[in-house]
């Protein structure tokens, strides 16, 4: 009987079986991987070969006790759809297809680490159970997510692709002037804003910041001229690179591609007729060159210039200071051993040379969205600057539902909600939730609802969440959620995935999703000092409290300021917080009677900073 004979559906399936264990077969390409390593003198020869080859029934008998059928059916929906016995499938087909029989055993990892097992042809899970475990062979690689991130980071060219050579479809200088002249000369002011991509095309941290800033300026009739490199890159463009195209956006509408030189010439020509209120705002320098930006500053001759510490690009091209994309590096000296082995190390000196050149040539006011970010910046650099201050992106104010776009607070900024609690931050007061059930009810307490909000990325703490989810499997105290715009490559079992896509017209999507699922705790376990972390504010707005790491920058500070959540010293402490039941008690008891919600109000970014001339004595 073939696959159609047992009614396999149209969904892609790798399974074909006729109900007899001995005739289950794979429809995947042949499983005959080349051994990744040659056998060698240290490979413990013969250790796997001293076993007698078992029958499929004998394999099944051994494997059955450790096989996790629920897990198998959860992560392999094709098996579930096929309606076959999962254990039989694994024994006859799944192992050869390198499918995993339980969360804690990775078939591919095991075979990669044990070429003698691979060569023997034994079922790797069976081998582990009958021999490998006693020999100390690990059932899976640990830190898998970090390893994946490391490999991705190493594989990616740090600078990204070089931009296409000129000429592209650049507007002529005359046409460019015609496109800009009316608006720039007739506006109440002109802002020249710089970031790494066209902010109207996607929604991310910097894009949101720039977009909100533009809206705030537009509301005051200030022309907002934004430039981004035609080709985004994760590093500064080399100083010696030939001229390339940049994208020009005016008041949120795309204008054209042009060059730094043409734009500088147009701005210089228009300057006598430009309004007095002129400002240069540097949000993100990646993909740009410092020299042409300096020339643009000269052409615009603004009243002041602002550099935002939206990330740490002015300290290292690895803008979140994750060494090899994996671990917070602490921004050591560029000639350190850590930088030597980091993918960002080789380009860091030239990168910092350009940054230093820019700061030397342009008098800059430095603005960070949090005290934590400013502290990291001031520790990690010695760049000259006129002043340094903290200016939050958003404020959390009491009130109902989030809005599609954020209103702008007044220049002084509306005071943040809550925040009146003692800043010990460890178990501060929190709300209870009438809908969640309390101890003493006949049915017992409902599980505490815990979420990871955002993409499954190392820099957002996904590995720590995944590890915690594995430890909490089967614990009735907790129900786990993953709110995300994109499914992870391998969804976690027992974690409910919830779509939450923040878009220009749906800025409140994450908060709404958190509210809709009555999330109690949001884990923000970022392994680097977040400069702001909007999702932490969205969690608070949705009435959830935070579980943060003390090294996660603004996030633990936010917990301490608001008294909303707990701060853990490390991932192990987070795990202990949950396993001990303290997290459940925190939600059910310590936080009883309070559900603080709120709405996020934009502070207007640079639009609410008073224009400042050079400040004597600062820097």
């Amino acid at each position: 009987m073939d696959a159609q004979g047992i009614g396999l559906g149209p969904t892609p399936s790798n399974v074909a079986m006729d109900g007899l264990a001995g005739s289950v077969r794979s429809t995947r390409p042949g499983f005959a991987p080349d051994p990744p390593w040659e056998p060698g003198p240290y490979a413990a020869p013969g250790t796997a070969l001293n076993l007698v080859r078992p029958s499929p029934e004998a394999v099944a008998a051994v494997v059955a006790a450790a096989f996790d059928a629920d897990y198998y059916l959860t992560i392999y929906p094709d098996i579930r759809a096929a309606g076959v016995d999962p254990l039989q499938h694994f024994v006859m087909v799944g192992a050869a297809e390198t499918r995993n029989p339980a969360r804690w055993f990775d078939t591919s990892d095991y075979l990669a680490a044990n070429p003698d097992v691979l060569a023997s042809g034994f079922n790797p899970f069976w081998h582990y159970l009958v021999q490998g475990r006693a020999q100390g062979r690990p059932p899976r690689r640990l830190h898998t997510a970090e390893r994946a991130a490391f490999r991705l980071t190493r594989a990616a060219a740090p600078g990204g692709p070089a931009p296409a050579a000129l000429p592209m479809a650049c507007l002529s200088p005359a046409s460019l002037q015609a496109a800009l002249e009316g608006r720039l000369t007739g506006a109440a002011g002109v802002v020249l804003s710089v970031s790494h991509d066209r902010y109207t095309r996607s929604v991310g941290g910097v894009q949101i910041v720039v977009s909100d800033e533009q809206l705030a300026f537009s509301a005051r009739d200030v022309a907002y001229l934004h430039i981004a490199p035609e080709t985004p890159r994760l590093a500064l463009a080399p100083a010696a690179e030939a001229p390339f195209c940049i994208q020009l956006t005016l008041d949120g509408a795309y204008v054209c591609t042009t060059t730094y030189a043409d734009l500088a010439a147009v701005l210089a020509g228009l300057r006598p007729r430009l309004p007095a209120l002129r400002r240069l705002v540097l949000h993100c320098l990646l993909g740009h060159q410092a020299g042409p930006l300096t020339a643009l500053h000269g052409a615009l001759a603004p009243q002041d210039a602002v550099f935002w510490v939206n990330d740490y690009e002015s300290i290292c091209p690895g803008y979140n200071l994750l060494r090899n994309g994996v671990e917070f590096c602490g921004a050591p000296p560029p000639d350190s051993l850590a930088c030597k082995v980091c993918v960002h190390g080789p380009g860091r000196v030239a990168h910092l040379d350009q940054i230093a050149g820019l700061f030397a040539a342009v008098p800059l006011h430095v603005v960070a969205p949090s005290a934590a970010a400013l502290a990291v910046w001031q520790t990690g650099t010695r760049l000259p600057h006129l002043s340094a201050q903290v200016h939050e992106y958003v404020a959390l104010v009491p009130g109902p539902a989030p809005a599609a776009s954020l209103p702008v607070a007044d220049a002084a900024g509306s005071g943040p909600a809550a925040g009146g609690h003692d800043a010990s931050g460890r178990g501060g007061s929190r709300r209870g939730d009438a809908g969640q059930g309390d101890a003493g009810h006949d049915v017992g307490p409902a599980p505490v609802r815990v979420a990871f909000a955002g993409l499954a990325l190392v820099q957002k703490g996904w590995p720590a969440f995944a590890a915690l989810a594995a430890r909490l499997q089967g614990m009735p105290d907790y129900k786990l959620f993953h709110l995300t715009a994109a499914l992870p490559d391998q969804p976690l079992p027992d974690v409910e995935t919830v779509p939450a896509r923040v878009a220009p017209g749906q800025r409140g999507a994450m908060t709404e999703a958190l509210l809709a699922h009555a999330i109690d705790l949001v884990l923000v376990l970022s392994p680097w000092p977040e400069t702001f972390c909007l999702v932490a504010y969205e969690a608070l707005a949705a009435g959830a409290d935070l579980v943060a790491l003390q090294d996660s920058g603004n996030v633990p500070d936010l917990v301490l300021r608001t008294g909303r959540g707990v701060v853990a010293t490390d991932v192990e402490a987070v795990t202990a917080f949950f396993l001990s039941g303290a997290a459940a008690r925190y939600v059910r008891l310590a936080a009883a009677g309070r559900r603080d919600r709120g709405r996020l109000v934009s502070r207007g970014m640079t639009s609410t900073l008073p224009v400042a001339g050079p400040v004597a004595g600062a820097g």
Partner: protein
Amino acid sequence: MRTCCYTSFTLTYLPRARILLQTLRAAQPGWDIHALVVDEAPPGVDLAPLLAGFDGVMRLDGLGVPRVRSWLFGHGLVEACTALKAAAMLRLMDAGYDRVIYLDPDIAVFHPLEPALDTVAGASIVLVPHQAEPNWQPVAILDNEMASLRYGVFNLGFIAVRADPAGRAFASWWATQVHAACRDAPDEGLFTDQKYADLVPCLLPGVAVLRDPGCNVASWNLSTRRLRINRNGGMTANGVPLRYCHFTKVGGIGDLMLERYAGDTVEPLEIWAWYRGELARHSAQPQVPANWWYYGRFADGVPVTPAMRHLYRTRSDLAAAFADPFTAGEGSFLAWMGTHQPGLLAATPDATAAS
């Protein structure tokens, strides 16, 4: 104290030797660094720029080894490179260095070595073991303890010897042993120059075993070394500065051991990936063919096989008759084999068989 460090290699290992040179120079700028090149340049290749940066280059004919080409014919590549280390050490002592340190070419140095050597400052001979802590898991014991028993307790990728009487006695004894028998034959109790080191603490005074976990981090001890990269930019192994890693068999069995014993840490992967990247960078403009070894072929290009080496090494009459066995043509050892051992010539399939 005048210290020099040297390494021994054939030209295919030049990229590795250059990584050693570059990292050692950064960590120990006061040391002289010499190269022992057990090879000759391919036709048309100028070695001078390839060996730039070394303070001295030792060649085969300058080592004082009697009938060196005859002796060399009896040895494979690894055997030759390891055996000549001892002769080179004697030469460097004679040149006036107070302390001579050997490092394998596939080593990279991270933090300075001197602080570790200071802990054994009184010793004339410093050895580093493959392992400095026991393993307890059967697989790890098979991979490590059993391998040490077979291939030698100490890793002679490193040895530091003072030019004092005890150190000179060691170097002379070592040179004598390896000249007589430096073979990759663990079933006979031999493994190049390395296995002899097992005897050194028993035979000679002034020997120290450097158990610093920052030294000799390699696939054979990753199971007991926890590598960290710190926020101050430094690196540690088991909490002490990471001094050097030995990147043995990168791309081969070393990768398997890395996977098996890196455990739940990513730092070993980062460090090994860096080394692979450096290797690729230094190999980017190959001027030496991949399988090149001048002494792997006869003068006419016919590969020298292990069987030919064995025959020549074990027949003193042949060694006496053919002083330079690498020659070809009438009257050569190669011609003699064509007449008396044609089967050996028939078994020379291609260049890769040469060793």
